[in-house]
Protein backbone atom coordinates (compact mmCIF):
# COMPACT_ATOMS: atom_id res chain seq x y z
CA UNK A 1 0.00 0.00 0.00
CA UNK A 2 1.26 3.47 -0.90
CA UNK A 3 2.28 5.77 1.93
CA UNK A 4 0.20 8.81 2.74
CA UNK A 5 0.87 11.73 0.43
CA UNK A 6 1.19 15.30 1.59
CA UNK A 7 0.43 18.52 -0.28
CA UNK A 8 3.33 20.92 -1.01
CA UNK A 9 3.16 24.18 1.00
CA UNK A 10 0.18 22.91 3.00
CA UNK A 11 -0.49 25.05 6.10
CA UNK A 12 -2.22 22.08 7.75
CA UNK A 13 -0.11 19.09 8.80
CA UNK A 14 -2.45 16.50 7.25
CA UNK A 15 -2.23 14.09 4.33
CA UNK A 16 -4.21 12.90 1.33
CA UNK A 17 -5.96 9.65 2.29
CA UNK A 18 -4.86 6.48 0.49
CA UNK A 19 -8.26 5.92 -1.09
CA UNK A 20 -8.29 9.34 -2.74
CA UNK A 21 -7.42 8.94 -6.42
CA UNK A 22 -6.27 12.21 -7.89
CA UNK A 23 -5.23 12.84 -11.47
CA UNK A 24 -1.70 14.26 -11.54
CA UNK A 25 -3.04 17.57 -12.90
CA UNK A 26 -5.77 17.87 -10.22
CA UNK A 27 -5.28 20.40 -7.44
CA UNK A 28 -6.36 20.22 -3.83
CA UNK A 29 -5.17 23.24 -1.85
CA UNK A 30 -5.06 21.87 1.67
CA UNK A 31 -5.37 18.59 3.52
CA UNK A 32 -7.56 20.44 6.01
CA UNK A 33 -10.44 19.56 3.64
CA UNK A 34 -9.98 15.92 4.71
CA UNK A 35 -10.44 16.49 8.45
CA UNK A 36 -14.07 15.19 8.41
CA UNK A 37 -13.25 12.49 5.79
CA UNK A 38 -14.10 8.95 6.99
CA UNK A 39 -14.52 7.03 3.74
CA UNK A 40 -13.42 3.41 3.73
CA UNK A 41 -14.71 2.77 0.22
CA UNK A 42 -12.16 1.46 -2.33
CA UNK A 43 -12.21 4.99 -3.78
CA UNK A 44 -13.56 7.69 -1.46
CA UNK A 45 -12.60 10.66 -3.61
CA UNK A 46 -11.74 10.74 -7.28
CA UNK A 47 -10.55 13.89 -9.04
CA UNK A 48 -10.25 14.26 -12.82
CA UNK A 49 -7.88 16.11 -15.08
CA UNK A 50 -7.49 19.83 -14.31
CA UNK A 51 -10.04 19.71 -11.51
CA UNK A 52 -9.62 21.76 -8.34
CA UNK A 53 -10.83 21.60 -4.74
CA UNK A 54 -10.03 24.89 -3.02
CA UNK A 55 -9.58 26.17 0.55
CA UNK A 56 -12.72 26.15 2.63
CA UNK A 57 -14.04 22.90 1.17
CA UNK A 58 -14.92 20.24 3.74
CA UNK A 59 -15.27 16.63 2.69
CA UNK A 60 -17.72 15.12 5.17
CA UNK A 61 -17.56 11.75 3.45
CA UNK A 62 -18.94 8.85 5.50
CA UNK A 63 -17.62 5.26 5.67
CA UNK A 64 -19.33 4.10 2.49
CA UNK A 65 -19.33 7.51 0.79
CA UNK A 66 -17.74 8.30 -2.54
CA UNK A 67 -17.28 11.63 -4.30
CA UNK A 68 -16.32 11.85 -7.96
CA UNK A 69 -15.11 15.18 -9.35
CA UNK A 70 -14.98 15.41 -13.15
CA UNK A 71 -12.39 16.93 -15.48
CA UNK A 72 -11.88 20.70 -15.08
CA UNK A 73 -14.52 20.87 -12.36
CA UNK A 74 -14.05 23.76 -9.93
CA UNK A 75 -15.02 23.25 -6.29
CA UNK A 76 -14.58 26.44 -4.19
CA UNK A 77 -15.20 26.32 -0.43
CA UNK A 78 -18.02 23.76 -0.67
CA UNK A 79 -19.50 21.62 2.12
CA UNK A 80 -19.89 18.08 0.82
CA UNK A 81 -21.88 15.71 3.03
CA UNK A 82 -21.83 12.28 1.42
CA UNK A 83 -22.82 8.84 2.70
CA UNK A 84 -23.60 7.26 -0.70
CA UNK A 85 -22.34 8.92 -3.87
CA UNK A 86 -21.98 12.46 -5.14
CA UNK A 87 -20.87 12.92 -8.71
CA UNK A 88 -19.75 16.32 -9.99
CA UNK A 89 -19.53 16.41 -13.79
CA UNK A 90 -16.86 17.76 -16.13
CA UNK A 91 -16.50 21.57 -16.27
CA UNK A 92 -18.92 22.00 -13.35
CA UNK A 93 -18.52 25.24 -11.39
CA UNK A 94 -19.50 24.93 -7.73
CA UNK A 95 -19.31 28.27 -5.89
CA UNK A 96 -18.40 29.17 -2.34
CA UNK A 97 -20.58 28.06 0.58
CA UNK A 98 -22.59 25.64 -1.53
CA UNK A 99 -23.89 22.61 0.37
CA UNK A 100 -24.20 19.26 -1.39
CA UNK A 101 -25.81 16.74 0.95
CA UNK A 102 -26.91 13.24 -0.04
CA UNK A 103 -28.15 12.53 3.49
CA UNK A 104 -29.63 14.30 6.51
CA UNK A 105 -27.33 12.13 8.65
CA UNK A 106 -29.96 12.19 11.43
CA UNK A 107 -33.25 10.28 11.41
CA UNK A 108 -36.50 12.23 10.99
CA UNK A 109 -37.99 10.51 14.08
CA UNK A 110 -37.14 12.63 17.16
CA UNK A 111 -36.84 9.59 19.45
CA UNK A 112 -34.26 8.01 17.14
CA UNK A 113 -32.42 11.33 16.87
CA UNK A 114 -32.27 11.58 20.65
CA UNK A 115 -30.74 8.12 21.01
CA UNK A 116 -28.09 8.98 18.41
CA UNK A 117 -27.33 12.36 20.03
CA UNK A 118 -26.74 10.59 23.33
CA UNK A 119 -24.18 8.31 21.70
CA UNK A 120 -22.24 10.97 19.74
CA UNK A 121 -20.39 12.44 22.77
CA UNK A 122 -19.09 8.97 23.69
CA UNK A 123 -17.25 8.52 20.40
CA UNK A 124 -13.79 9.70 19.46
CA UNK A 125 -13.67 11.29 16.94
CA UNK A 126 -17.25 12.40 17.49
CA UNK A 127 -19.37 11.36 14.57
CA UNK A 128 -22.92 10.58 13.55
CA UNK A 129 -23.44 6.99 12.47
CA UNK A 130 -27.22 6.61 12.38
CA UNK A 131 -28.37 4.39 9.59
CA UNK A 132 -30.47 6.88 7.68
CA UNK A 133 -30.97 6.57 3.96
CA UNK A 134 -28.63 8.44 1.66
CA UNK A 135 -29.69 9.23 -1.89
CA UNK A 136 -26.98 9.92 -4.49
CA UNK A 137 -26.60 13.39 -5.98
CA UNK A 138 -25.64 13.69 -9.65
CA UNK A 139 -24.43 16.99 -11.00
CA UNK A 140 -24.12 16.87 -14.78
CA UNK A 141 -21.29 18.27 -16.84
CA UNK A 142 -21.17 22.02 -17.50
CA UNK A 143 -23.48 22.71 -14.50
CA UNK A 144 -22.97 25.91 -12.50
CA UNK A 145 -24.17 26.19 -8.91
CA UNK A 146 -24.27 29.74 -7.48
CA UNK A 147 -22.95 30.74 -4.07
CA UNK A 148 -24.72 29.68 -0.85
CA UNK A 149 -27.02 27.25 -2.71
CA UNK A 150 -28.04 23.94 -1.16
CA UNK A 151 -28.69 20.67 -3.00
CA UNK A 152 -30.74 18.12 -1.04
CA UNK A 153 -30.54 14.29 -1.13
CA UNK A 154 -31.44 12.44 -4.34
CA UNK A 155 -31.27 15.42 -6.66
CA UNK A 156 -29.99 15.10 -10.25
CA UNK A 157 -28.97 18.31 -12.01
CA UNK A 158 -28.96 17.95 -15.79
CA UNK A 159 -26.12 18.93 -18.10
CA UNK A 160 -25.52 22.66 -18.64
CA UNK A 161 -28.05 23.78 -16.01
CA UNK A 162 -27.53 26.77 -13.69
CA UNK A 163 -28.63 26.98 -10.06
CA UNK A 164 -28.99 30.61 -8.89
CA UNK A 165 -27.19 31.94 -5.85
CA UNK A 166 -28.76 31.00 -2.48
CA UNK A 167 -31.27 28.59 -4.05
CA UNK A 168 -32.50 25.44 -2.34
CA UNK A 169 -32.74 22.57 -4.83
CA UNK A 170 -35.29 20.02 -3.64
CA UNK A 171 -36.05 18.24 -6.93
CA UNK A 172 -34.34 17.26 -10.19
CA UNK A 173 -33.25 20.02 -12.56
CA UNK A 174 -33.70 19.58 -16.31
CA UNK A 175 -30.65 19.98 -18.56
CA UNK A 176 -30.03 23.51 -19.90
CA UNK A 177 -32.43 25.29 -17.58
CA UNK A 178 -31.81 27.98 -14.96
CA UNK A 179 -33.47 27.29 -11.62
CA UNK A 180 -33.51 29.67 -8.66
CA UNK A 181 -35.25 30.49 -5.43
CA UNK A 182 -36.31 28.65 -2.31
CA UNK A 183 -37.53 26.15 -3.29
CA UNK A 184 -35.79 26.38 -6.68
CA UNK A 185 -38.07 26.78 -9.70
CA UNK A 186 -37.26 27.09 -13.41
CA UNK A 187 -36.70 30.77 -14.26
CA UNK A 188 -35.75 30.23 -17.90
CA UNK A 189 -34.29 27.84 -20.47
CA UNK A 190 -30.85 28.02 -22.05
CA UNK A 191 -29.79 27.46 -25.63
CA UNK A 192 -29.27 23.68 -25.91
CA UNK A 193 -26.00 24.02 -27.81
CA UNK A 194 -23.77 21.07 -27.05
CA UNK A 195 -20.15 21.97 -27.23
CA UNK A 196 -17.49 19.54 -26.21
CA UNK A 197 -14.00 20.82 -25.79
CA UNK A 198 -10.81 20.03 -24.00
Amino acid at each position, binding site marked *: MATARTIPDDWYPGAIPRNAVLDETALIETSYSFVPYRSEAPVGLQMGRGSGIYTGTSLHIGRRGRVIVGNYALVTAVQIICDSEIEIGD*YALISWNVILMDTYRFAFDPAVRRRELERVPLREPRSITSDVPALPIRIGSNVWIGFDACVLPGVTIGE*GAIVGARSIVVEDVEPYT*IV*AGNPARVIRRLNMEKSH*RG
Partner: protein
Amino acid sequence: MIDQEHSNRQLLEPGYWTDGEFPANVLLGPNTQLKGPHIFRQFRSLVSPALTIGVHCTMDGVHFALGKEARVDIGDYCYFTNAMLLCELELHIGSYVVLGWNATIADTDFHPIAPAERIADAIACSPLGEGRPRPEIVRRPVVIEDDVWIGPNATILKGVRIGAGAFIEAGALVTRDVPPRARVLGNPARVIGEV
Protein backbone atom coordinates in the same frame (compact mmCIF):
# COMPACT_ATOMS: atom_id res chain seq x y z
CA MET B 1 -23.41 75.95 15.09
CA ILE B 2 -21.88 75.06 11.76
CA ASP B 3 -18.56 76.44 12.94
CA GLN B 4 -18.67 74.25 16.03
CA GLU B 5 -19.40 71.09 13.99
CA HIS B 6 -16.59 72.03 11.70
CA SER B 7 -14.13 72.36 14.55
CA ASN B 8 -15.30 69.07 16.08
CA ARG B 9 -14.55 67.39 12.81
CA GLN B 10 -11.03 68.76 12.85
CA LEU B 11 -10.43 66.92 16.13
CA LEU B 12 -11.49 63.52 14.83
CA GLU B 13 -8.87 60.87 14.23
CA PRO B 14 -8.29 59.89 10.63
CA GLY B 15 -9.99 56.70 9.42
CA TYR B 16 -8.13 53.52 10.34
CA TRP B 17 -8.00 49.71 10.08
CA THR B 18 -7.55 48.01 13.46
CA ASP B 19 -5.51 45.16 11.95
CA GLY B 20 -2.86 46.85 9.87
CA GLU B 21 -2.08 49.40 7.22
CA PHE B 22 -4.80 49.61 4.57
CA PRO B 23 -3.96 49.67 0.83
CA ALA B 24 -2.84 53.01 -0.63
CA ASN B 25 -5.85 53.23 -2.97
CA VAL B 26 -8.30 53.17 -0.04
CA LEU B 27 -9.56 56.54 1.28
CA LEU B 28 -11.17 56.62 4.70
CA GLY B 29 -12.97 59.65 6.14
CA PRO B 30 -12.32 60.79 9.72
CA ASN B 31 -13.42 58.45 12.50
CA THR B 32 -14.21 55.57 10.15
CA GLN B 33 -13.14 52.24 11.59
CA LEU B 34 -12.44 49.02 9.65
CA LYS B 35 -11.99 45.84 11.63
CA GLY B 36 -11.09 42.19 10.85
CA PRO B 37 -7.79 40.56 9.89
CA HIS B 38 -8.87 39.17 6.50
CA ILE B 39 -10.96 41.99 5.06
CA PHE B 40 -8.51 42.82 2.26
CA ARG B 41 -7.54 39.25 1.36
CA GLN B 42 -9.37 39.48 -1.96
CA PHE B 43 -8.73 43.16 -2.60
CA ARG B 44 -7.14 43.31 -6.08
CA SER B 45 -8.26 46.65 -7.44
CA LEU B 46 -5.58 48.65 -9.25
CA VAL B 47 -7.62 51.84 -9.78
CA SER B 48 -7.14 54.87 -7.55
CA PRO B 49 -9.09 55.46 -5.47
CA ALA B 50 -10.60 51.95 -5.44
CA LEU B 51 -12.49 52.21 -2.16
CA THR B 52 -13.73 55.49 -0.70
CA ILE B 53 -15.55 55.53 2.64
CA GLY B 54 -16.96 58.69 4.27
CA VAL B 55 -16.94 59.77 7.92
CA HIS B 56 -18.06 57.93 11.07
CA CYS B 57 -18.51 54.54 9.41
CA THR B 58 -18.16 51.23 11.29
CA MET B 59 -17.19 48.21 9.16
CA ASP B 60 -16.68 45.06 11.17
CA GLY B 61 -15.49 41.94 9.31
CA VAL B 62 -16.57 43.28 5.93
CA HIS B 63 -15.01 41.39 3.06
CA PHE B 64 -13.83 43.85 0.38
CA ALA B 65 -13.44 41.53 -2.63
CA LEU B 66 -12.62 44.02 -5.37
CA GLY B 67 -11.46 42.95 -8.83
CA LYS B 68 -8.75 44.78 -10.79
CA GLU B 69 -11.05 47.48 -12.19
CA ALA B 70 -13.44 47.79 -9.25
CA ARG B 71 -14.51 51.07 -7.66
CA VAL B 72 -16.59 51.20 -4.47
CA ASP B 73 -17.81 54.32 -2.72
CA ILE B 74 -19.64 54.38 0.59
CA GLY B 75 -21.19 57.44 2.32
CA ASP B 76 -21.19 58.53 5.98
CA TYR B 77 -22.49 56.90 9.16
CA CYS B 78 -22.80 53.41 7.64
CA TYR B 79 -22.76 50.33 9.85
CA PHE B 80 -21.77 47.01 8.19
CA THR B 81 -21.09 43.70 9.95
CA ASN B 82 -19.68 40.54 8.37
CA ALA B 83 -20.92 41.40 4.90
CA MET B 84 -19.44 40.46 1.51
CA LEU B 85 -18.91 43.23 -1.04
CA LEU B 86 -18.03 41.59 -4.36
CA CYS B 87 -17.24 44.16 -6.99
CA GLU B 88 -15.72 43.92 -10.46
CA LEU B 89 -16.96 47.28 -11.76
CA GLU B 90 -18.90 49.76 -9.59
CA LEU B 91 -20.73 49.76 -6.30
CA HIS B 92 -22.24 52.96 -4.88
CA ILE B 93 -23.56 52.95 -1.33
CA GLY B 94 -25.16 56.05 0.25
CA SER B 95 -25.14 57.27 3.86
CA TYR B 96 -26.85 55.76 6.91
CA VAL B 97 -26.90 52.32 5.29
CA VAL B 98 -26.99 49.22 7.51
CA LEU B 99 -25.74 45.91 6.12
CA GLY B 100 -26.24 42.71 8.13
CA TRP B 101 -24.41 39.49 8.79
CA ASN B 102 -23.49 37.38 5.82
CA ALA B 103 -25.30 39.70 3.42
CA THR B 104 -23.77 39.70 -0.07
CA ILE B 105 -23.70 42.41 -2.71
CA ALA B 106 -22.29 41.45 -6.13
CA ASP B 107 -22.12 43.49 -9.37
CA THR B 108 -21.37 40.41 -11.55
CA ASP B 109 -22.25 36.71 -11.77
CA PHE B 110 -18.51 35.80 -12.06
CA HIS B 111 -19.08 33.24 -14.84
CA PRO B 112 -20.83 33.45 -18.23
CA ILE B 113 -24.40 32.15 -18.62
CA ALA B 114 -24.03 30.54 -22.09
CA PRO B 115 -23.08 26.85 -21.65
CA ALA B 116 -20.23 26.76 -24.19
CA GLU B 117 -18.64 29.90 -22.73
CA ARG B 118 -18.93 28.37 -19.29
CA ILE B 119 -16.90 25.36 -20.45
CA ALA B 120 -14.19 27.70 -21.77
CA ASP B 121 -14.27 29.54 -18.44
CA ALA B 122 -14.00 26.31 -16.42
CA ILE B 123 -10.86 25.45 -18.39
CA ALA B 124 -9.42 28.98 -17.99
CA CYS B 125 -10.05 28.84 -14.20
CA SER B 126 -8.56 25.32 -13.80
CA PRO B 127 -5.03 24.45 -12.66
CA LEU B 128 -4.26 23.85 -16.37
CA GLY B 129 -5.72 27.21 -17.47
CA GLU B 130 -2.63 29.29 -16.71
CA GLY B 131 -2.75 32.43 -18.87
CA ARG B 132 -5.82 31.52 -20.93
CA PRO B 133 -8.11 34.52 -21.37
CA ARG B 134 -11.52 34.21 -19.69
CA PRO B 135 -14.67 34.94 -21.71
CA GLU B 136 -16.43 38.30 -21.30
CA ILE B 137 -18.59 38.34 -18.16
CA VAL B 138 -21.49 40.71 -17.57
CA ARG B 139 -20.86 43.42 -14.94
CA ARG B 140 -23.57 45.91 -13.96
CA PRO B 141 -23.17 48.60 -11.26
CA VAL B 142 -25.15 48.26 -8.04
CA VAL B 143 -26.54 51.34 -6.28
CA ILE B 144 -27.77 51.39 -2.68
CA GLU B 145 -29.30 54.77 -1.82
CA ASP B 146 -29.33 56.51 1.59
CA ASP B 147 -31.03 55.06 4.69
CA VAL B 148 -31.39 51.52 3.33
CA TRP B 149 -31.47 48.60 5.78
CA ILE B 150 -30.21 45.25 4.46
CA GLY B 151 -30.76 42.26 6.74
CA PRO B 152 -28.67 39.18 7.50
CA ASN B 153 -28.20 36.67 4.66
CA ALA B 154 -29.77 39.06 2.15
CA THR B 155 -28.32 39.06 -1.38
CA ILE B 156 -28.24 41.91 -3.87
CA LEU B 157 -27.30 40.87 -7.41
CA LYS B 158 -25.90 42.75 -10.42
CA GLY B 159 -27.51 45.91 -11.81
CA VAL B 160 -29.88 46.47 -8.88
CA ARG B 161 -30.74 49.94 -7.51
CA ILE B 162 -32.24 50.03 -4.04
CA GLY B 163 -34.27 53.19 -3.38
CA ALA B 164 -33.73 55.42 -0.35
CA GLY B 165 -35.10 54.11 2.92
CA ALA B 166 -35.97 50.65 1.60
CA PHE B 167 -36.01 47.72 4.02
CA ILE B 168 -34.55 44.45 2.74
CA GLU B 169 -35.61 41.59 5.01
CA ALA B 170 -33.27 38.84 6.17
CA GLY B 171 -32.63 36.24 3.49
CA ALA B 172 -34.19 38.27 0.69
CA LEU B 173 -32.63 37.66 -2.73
CA VAL B 174 -32.94 40.84 -4.80
CA THR B 175 -32.52 40.75 -8.59
CA ARG B 176 -34.72 43.74 -9.54
CA ASP B 177 -34.75 47.43 -8.56
CA VAL B 178 -36.47 48.24 -5.27
CA PRO B 179 -38.52 51.46 -5.00
CA PRO B 180 -37.76 53.94 -2.20
CA ARG B 181 -39.19 52.95 1.22
CA ALA B 182 -40.37 49.54 -0.03
CA ARG B 183 -40.15 46.50 2.21
CA VAL B 184 -39.03 43.36 0.35
CA LEU B 185 -38.93 39.74 1.42
CA GLY B 186 -38.29 36.28 0.01
CA ASN B 187 -36.19 34.37 -2.48
CA PRO B 188 -36.71 35.72 -5.11
CA ALA B 189 -37.64 38.93 -3.29
CA ARG B 190 -41.03 40.59 -3.72
CA VAL B 191 -42.29 43.93 -2.42
CA ILE B 192 -44.57 43.17 0.54
CA GLY B 193 -45.25 46.68 1.77
CA GLU B 194 -43.82 50.04 2.74
CA VAL B 195 -41.84 51.19 5.73
